[in-house]
């Protein structure tokens, strides 16, 4: 059985030869460590007079961005192949470098959806990015932003199509690259204006919120179509709907604002005979039944630090959802011992592996996730994940 058959068996709730293992590698730090490449001190270069100017110019040209971004994820797939993963996610972004005096390095990315991504330095000097705030505080600013960005959205969709397809063509014989249509409709609704602002809009300007959701749904469907053109049978999509102790919004409100959008997403994926796996961080127990109802095929993440337990999730949803996750990345995959990683893999397989429908992975990724621990995770998965399971 090869990696593709293994993933597809799991997606069909069948027991393959063993539990498949998926990588969430995307950070240059991880890639550099795995491929033993010297990190590029991007932030340092930005500060140098000539290099800084050149980088700033190049970064904001579409052709250079496309090359750089492709190179980054080609590195992610090569790393995942080297470590022995069956699959790895691939995610596309389009950003523009902007002066940001408040940022530690004086620079930040702005994305076409209206978000600011803080540009930072990972431990090895590679660049690291994190969403920090939105650029559209008012209805008028949002309207002007999306109007101005229409040509950029077209370029983005085109880039997405080429990016995923090219990665599958180049690496699809050695690993299963699963395209991720992100950011999702919910995140794209609130993040451009910040959570507090968006919350106020829900209560004070419901018609405007509906307009935002409709706009983002329409854009997301195009994005999703572009990702699916890669030809891979599984597509990831998502939105972080949870926080540490529960959903960010009342489930009934999520249903009211986003239910139809999510149903449309699942339907579109199924029309193309593909499977849809939904990513959401946070504590999402109260949304699991919604995911089933909306037609999702699986979920990925299930953060242990938000109280998510694979066994409980399986108990709640049975085999109505494929589960992908959920090894902790706050301690276990950063500082955990060999024995702790081994125990966590054993527990995850025991909790979710029976009858197929389970893909082992970390619950997320960040630059501090240690490749050595990823290796341990894969070793343990090969040791305990053989079907029929004996754990």
């Amino acid at each position, binding site marked *: 059985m090869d990696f593709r058959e293994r993933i597809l068996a799991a997606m069909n709730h069948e027991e393959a030869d063993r539990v498949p293992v998926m990588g969430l590698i995307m950070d240059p730090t991880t890639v550099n460590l795995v491929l033993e490449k010297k990190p590029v001190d991007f932030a340092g270069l930005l500060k140098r007079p000539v290099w800084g100017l050149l980088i700033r110019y190049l970064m904001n040209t579409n052709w250079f961005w496309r090359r750089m971004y492709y190179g980054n994820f080609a590195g992610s797939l090569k790393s995942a192949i080297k470590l022995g993963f069956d699959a790895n996610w691939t995610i596309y972004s389009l950003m523009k470098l902007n002066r940001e005096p408040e940022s530690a390095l004086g620079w930040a990315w702005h994305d076409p959806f209206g978000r600011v991504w803080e540009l930072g330095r990972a431990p090895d000097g590679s660049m690291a990015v994190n969403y*920090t705030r939105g650029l559209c505080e008012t209805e008028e600013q949002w309207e002007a932003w999306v109007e101005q960005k229409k040509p950029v959205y077209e370029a983005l969709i085109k880039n997405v199509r080429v990016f995923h397809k090219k990665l599958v063509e180049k690496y699809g014989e050695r690993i299963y690259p699963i395209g991720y249509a992100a950011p999702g409709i919910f995140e794209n609704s609130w993040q451009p204006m910040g959570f*507090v602002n968006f919350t106020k809009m829900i209560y004070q300007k419901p018609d405007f919120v509906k307009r935002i959701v409709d706009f983002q749904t329409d854009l997301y469907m195009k994005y999703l179509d572009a990702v699916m053109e890669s030809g891979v049978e599984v597509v990831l999509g998502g939105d972080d709907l949870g*926080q540490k102790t529960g959903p960010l919004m*009342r489930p009934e409100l999520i249903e009211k604002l986003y239910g139809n959008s999510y149903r449309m997403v699942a339907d579109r994926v199924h029309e193309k005979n593909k499977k849809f796996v939904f990513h959401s961080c946070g504590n999402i127990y109260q949304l699991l039944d919604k995911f089933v109802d909306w037609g999702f095929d699986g979920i990925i993440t299930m953060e242990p630090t938000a109280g998510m337990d694979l066994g409980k999730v399986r108990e709640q949803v049975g085999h109505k959802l494929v589960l992908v996750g959920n090894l902790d990345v*706050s301690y276990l995959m*950063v500082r955990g011992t060999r024995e702790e990683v081994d125990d966590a893999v054993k527990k995850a397989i025991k909790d979710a592996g029976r009858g197929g429908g389970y893909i082992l992975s970390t619950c997320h990724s*960040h*630059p*501090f996730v240690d490749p050595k621990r990823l290796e341990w995770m894969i070793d343990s998965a090969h040791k305990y994940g053989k079907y029929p399971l004996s754990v």
Partner: protein
Amino acid sequence: MSGDVLNQLKSSLLELDMEGALAAARMVREDRQVAVEEAVAAVSEALKVVGSRFQEGEWFLTELVYAGEIAKEVMGLLSPLMETGAGGLGTVVVGTVAGDLHDLGKNIFINYARSAGFKVIDLGMDVNANSFVNAVKENSPFALGMSCLLTSTDGEIVKVVEDLKKAGLREKVRIIIGGAALTEQFAETAGVDAFAKDAITGIDIIRNWSGG
């Protein structure tokens, strides 16, 4: 009459009715039939109910945030009229650690802490250890709150604890931490006094510490 205004203030807040709450606050300002302190106490009581509803899973983050925003607007009308000023329960210094630019949880905590009667010194985001130590030195708070969303920056909390020890301030302030990256286990190893899984739990903890 005075009871009506206070009831309107509380019920509007609990029904997430911004206009109703502001109308009640304006009545307090204009008619002066109710002591401002009583109105502020009513806001604080209402927010306690909001907090309980959140902790019990009856309310969600959007409701918690919006109630906090209503309280902030109401307090903006009432606080200037208070003779002694708000913050009678003591001073708390709060910030997001260096390298982290997330402030949603921190700001919810601040909003509720101020409405509950604490004086809050907000150091903002991306605050280095030195700034935390200086703020403790200058303001003598009974509590220091640190927020951290990223696993990559949790080491900053340990650094602040160490620097407070070096400055001889660790025994003078209680430390509470919160944020997506953190756990009870981390709090124990970092040597802080409390971990709050959410902003409302954080308020309960500092309220206990202050005896308020």
